[in-house]
């Protein structure tokens, strides 16, 4: 189940809902000044600890391990190595048996923090790598368009041929050459069908006209 959550989009809508609830609680518990830190800390915990120690994640997420044992494990392993807020939060999550939602919590926390900060995640797909100047230009144009600060992530996709595809949330702005070619093909096929239906003789070879 946790594997599905690693996808760019949350694939388990139930987990996503739980993740949003716990993320709101985490940001609420963190002091105003410490919110950024706790979100970064959660990111680091998932990337640097859980990704490297899958057995730890399995143990903390397993319903067969008693909650007390999980709390002891967290205390022994993490006490003094992370902020008190995050440690307490992880204990609450473990006690409620929701550790398997932690990746959804992390994603929701990042999203909620972005919203609080007036930032938005934008994915850009281009056929060739963008240089720094172009990245900056795209970021500035998008910030002007969206009225928010933009976290830009760029991905290469050769199938686009040219242009770029920008995704903001559920909206996709497709200015790729591949899409233009698809549209040309569709309208050309329609046009030829209409023209052929109106006067088929026009398309007959010259010798058959004679």
């Amino acid at each position, binding site marked *: 189940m946790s594997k599905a959550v690693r996808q760019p989009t949350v*694939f388990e809508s139930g987990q996503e809902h739980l993740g949003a609830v716990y993320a709101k609680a985490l940001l609420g518990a963190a002091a105003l000044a410490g919110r950024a830190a706790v979100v970064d800390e959660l990111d680091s915990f998932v990337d640097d600890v859980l990704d490297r120690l899958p057995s730890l994640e399995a143990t903390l997420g397993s319903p067969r391990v008693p909650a007390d044992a999980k709390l002891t494990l967290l205390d022994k392993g993490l006490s003094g190595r992370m902020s008190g807020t995050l440690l307490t939060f992880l204990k609450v999550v473990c006690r409620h048996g929701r550790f398997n939602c932690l990746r959804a919590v992390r994603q929701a926390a990042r999203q909620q923090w972005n919203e609080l900060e007036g930032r938005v995640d934008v994915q850009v797909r281009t056929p060739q790598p963008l240089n720094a100047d172009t990245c900056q230009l795209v970021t500035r144009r998008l910030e002007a368009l969206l009225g928010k600060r933009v976290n830009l992530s760029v991905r290469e996709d050769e199938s686009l041929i040219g242009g770029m595809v920008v995704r903001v949330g*559920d*909206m996709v702005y*497709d200015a790729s050459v591949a899409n233009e070619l698809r*549209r040309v093909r569709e309208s*050309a096929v329609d*046009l*030829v069908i209409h023209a052929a239906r109106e006067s088929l003789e026009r*398309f*007959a070879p010259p010798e058959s006209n004679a």
Partner: protein
Amino acid sequence: MRFNADEIASVLQQEIEQFESQIDVREVGTVLEAGDGIARVYGLSGVMSGEMVEFPNGVQGQAFNLEENSVGVIILGDYLGIAAGDEVRSLGRLLSVPVGEAVIGRVLDPLGNPLDGKGPVDAREYRPVEVIATGVSQRQPVAEPLQTGIKAIDSMTPIGRGQRELIIGDRRTGKTAIALDTIINQRESGVKCFYVAIGQKDSSVAGVIAELEKHGAMAYTTVVVAGASSPAPLQYVAPYAGTAMAEHFMFNGQHALIIYDDLSKQAVAYRQLSLLMRRPPGREAYPGDVFYCHSRLLERSAKLSDALGGGSLTSLPIIETLEGEVSAYIPTNVISITDGQIYLQPDLFFAGQRPAMNAGISVSRVGGKAQVKVMKKVAGGLRLDLASFRELEAFAQLGTELDAATQARLDRGYRMVELLKQPQYKPMHVVDQVLSIYAGTQGYLDDVPVTAVPAWEEAFLSFVRQHKPGLWKTLDERKDMNAEVEAEVKTAIGEFKSQYTAAKPSA
């Protein structure tokens, strides 16, 4: 055929020259799960109910369930090529189908794609599949008859243009036969016909199309097919698609007839979709809104006001019952929605009475208003007479001795039953029907042996056409029978009888 490549190239060049580059803005989501004709999609947060979406393989779907975190989509096509993780894009439009003259004579799927191999449908206009039915101020009462060409129906349960008349009965009792005869009878009436086949075997549909072609009915008929092998979403959408195509003619001041064959299968498809979408099941596991599913469909049949052109859409929904159980959920629903029902009974069918219509419980709530005057005069009491004959017949079977008057009523009843039998694909002109029924109800057949009634009728009608064309024409033009015309009819019958008896003294 070979094509001139230069000419095609010039068309393409023109298209490319006129092509304007623009950014394609779309809303997207991700498939969470897909199967059994439905998909759950994460994202598409701005999609509206009924909006079309497109999957990467080009298959389209329709937003069906809007939930808190996901959207339930019905897949209108092959769902086997759709996988979890696929991107879904909203198209920002509702499901529409091609309409107009281009669809006439074609066999189409519920999305308007051709299935008859006659090339693409060159439609100039499209119409949304789901629209709200016309309101009361846009309608007028049903008064214009729609002749089915079937004596039993046109005389006892007449159907008007704009009416919804249910054809209900067990399997193999002749439901589709009535619908087909009605279509065949519209050859000269100018009524455009639409036959929507839902959940039927493709072989049966092929048979229907062949019969329609054989009788020249495909020239004014469109067949919409969502066969038994089509996914449930297509079977669910098919009646709405057919109605949209038929409505186009109604709103253009013309008359259309639509057959839904059959709505029980559509209800089953809708139940499947609803259960897969986790909507709560109700009676017989159908969802709570299955009544609305049928009522909003049948309410679209109407007779429009003169201000809107006076067009009409008549519908003949078909419902298949199990073991004659008309009190099941779907039959009672559709009976309550429609303006009457033609009930076909298996025992009548197997006794050789075809159409096997039970005159006692078949009704038309529009009644005599949708009959031509002459038929109303001739067949006014026929339904009740026939119903009382059935009662009397049951009583007579007990072996009781009957008085002469009762025996005479029974004898006439037997002849009327015989007279109302009609072979398939032989719809009759209303004047012929009137002449036959007049002869029967006025007792001119009382001295004809029961088994000889069909032959007598055929000979009589051919006699009138050959020797009394003036009378036939008068009845056809006036559609009424005054004392003078009635006397002429009586004379004609008298003349025929003397001639017929002389020719066949043994009869």
